[in-house]
C-alpha cells in the first residue's frame, strides 16, 4: 500500500531538490541473469542474479536498470526483470509472468472496485452523454507542426530514420 503511493510522492519530492532521478522500486528477476558494472552486455559481471531474486531499482538508462542486490549494485537488462515482488504479493507483473512462464497462458487481470478516487471506468464511458462543447476546447491547446519542431529543436531532439519492426516469431 505504502509502496504504491511512493513513486508519485517521490516524483514530487524530486522536484524540490537533487534527489534520485527515479523513485526506488522493487523488481524481481525473471530468469537467471547477471548484474553488470555498466549498462552494456559486454560489461564486467559483478554478480550472478538467480531467477526470483528481488532487486531495488535505482534508475534507468535505455534498456538497462541500475539496481541494488543485497550490498551490491550494478546494471541489469530490462528484459530480465519485472517490476514488483515475486512473493508477498500483489504485483500484476510478477504473478502474471510466473504464471505465464509455467503454464504458457496469461492470467486474468485484476479487476476491482474503485474506492474514493476520481476514477474512470467502463460504465462511465458506456453511459456518457456526448459533450461536443468540450471537443472545441481542445483547439485552445493545439500546436502547429512548426511549433512542435521548434520545441524539439530546443531540446536536442533529432529526427532519425528508423524502420518499423516485424513482430517476433518467438512468442513468450
Amino acid at each position, binding site marked *: 500500500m505504502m509502496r*504504491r503511493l511512493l513513486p508519485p510522492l517521490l516524483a514530487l519530492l524530486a522536484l524540490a531538490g537533487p534527489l534520485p532521478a527515479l523513485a526506488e522500486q522493487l523488481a524481481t528477476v525473471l530468469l537467471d541473469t547477471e548484474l553488470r558494472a555498466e549498462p552494456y552486455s559486454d560489461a564486467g559481471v559483478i554478480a550472478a542474479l538467480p531467477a526470483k531474486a528481488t532487486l531495488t531499482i535505482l534508475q534507468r538508462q535505455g534498456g538497462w536498470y541500475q539496481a541494488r542486490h543485497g550490498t551490491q549494485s550494478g546494471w541489469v537488462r530490462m528484459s530480465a526483470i519485472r517490476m514488483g515482488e515475486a512473493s508477498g504479493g500483489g504485483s500484476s507483473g510478477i504473478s502474471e509472468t510466473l504464471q505465464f512462464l509455467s503454464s504458457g497462458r496469461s492470467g486474468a487481470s485484476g479487476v476491482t472496485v474503485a474506492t474514493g478516487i476520481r476514477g474512470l471506468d467502463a460504465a462511465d464511458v458506456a453511459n456518457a452523454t456526448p459533450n461536443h462543447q468540450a471537443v472545441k476546447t481542445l483547439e485552445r491547446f493545439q500546436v502547429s507542426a512548426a511549433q512542435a519542431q521548434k520545441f524539439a529543436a530546443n531540446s536536442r531532439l533529432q529526427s532519425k530514420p528508423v524502420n518499423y519492426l516485424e513482430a517476433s516469431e518467438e512468442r513468450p
Partner: protein
Amino acid sequence: MMTRLTALLAALLLLPAATCQAGFFDKLKEGLESGELDLGQTIEQAKQAFGEVSPAQEQAVGEEAVAVLLGAVPLLGNDPLQRYVNRVGHWVALHTERQQLPWRFGVLDTDDVNAFAAPGGYIFITRGLMLRMQSEAELAGTLAHETVHVVEKHYLDAVQKQAQMDLAVNVAGTQVAAEERAKLERISSGFRELYSRGLDKEDEFEADRKGVVIAARAGYDPYGLPAVLQTLAGMNPEDAALAFLFKTHPPPSQRLGLLEPLFSRLDPYARQPQLQQRFLRQMAQLKKTP
C-alpha cells in the same frame, strides 16, 4: 488489408501533387463555411482517393468519439500542461505516416491510469498515468503508441466492423438533416461500446511495436514505452486506478514479453534523450491544479 490501405494512403500523401493536402483541408473548410462547396461530390472524390472513409468523414467521426470520451471525463484544467503534451505529441506524430492530420492532444482529469485515441488525430492521456511517469521519453512513447491507433485506423475499423455501420456521414455543416443526426448518434453509441470494451489485442501489440519505433524516430530514448509497461506491471493489480486499463488491454507483462525480442533493434537509439528534468518541471504544474 488494412496495412495495404494505409500504405496506399501514405503513398498518396507523399506524392508531390498531394502537397496540396493541407490546402485540401483548408479549401474544404472554406467551402463548407461559405456553403459554396458541393460536398457530395467532394466526398465522392475523396472516397475514390482514400478508400472507404474520407478525411472529412474521419474528422466528423472522430469528433463524435471525442464527445463521448469527454462526456465521461473532463479535460484537466491546466493549460500549460495541456500545451506541453500537445508539443510533445505533435512532434511525435510528425514521425508517423499521417503527419498532416490536425493532431490534438488532451490530458484527462482522472486518477485512472489510461490513454485513448480517436479517429482524425485525437489523443488522450490521463493525469493518473502521467503522474506515474518519470520522463518525457515515457510520455512520448505512450503518445506514440496512441498515434498508431489513429494512423492504422484501429478505432475507425473497429467501430465500423462492430456496428457494421455506414460511415458515409454527410458532414455538410449547413444542413444536418435528421437522418445525418441519427447516423452520428449511431456512431456515438458505437464509440460508447468500443471505448468501454477496448480494441483487439493485436491492435495493441501493433501499437506497441510501432510506437517504440516512432519514439526513436522522434529522437527519444525508445525504451520509454517499455518502461511505462514495467511500471504498470509493478503496480498492485488490485489498484482501482488500473481496473479500466486491465479490462481493455492485454496484461502489461505480456506486452513487454512481445516487445523484448525486439529490444536489440532499439539499442542503437538507447542513448537518445529521456528529457527527465523537463518532464518533472512540467509535472510540477500539476501541484498547482486544485
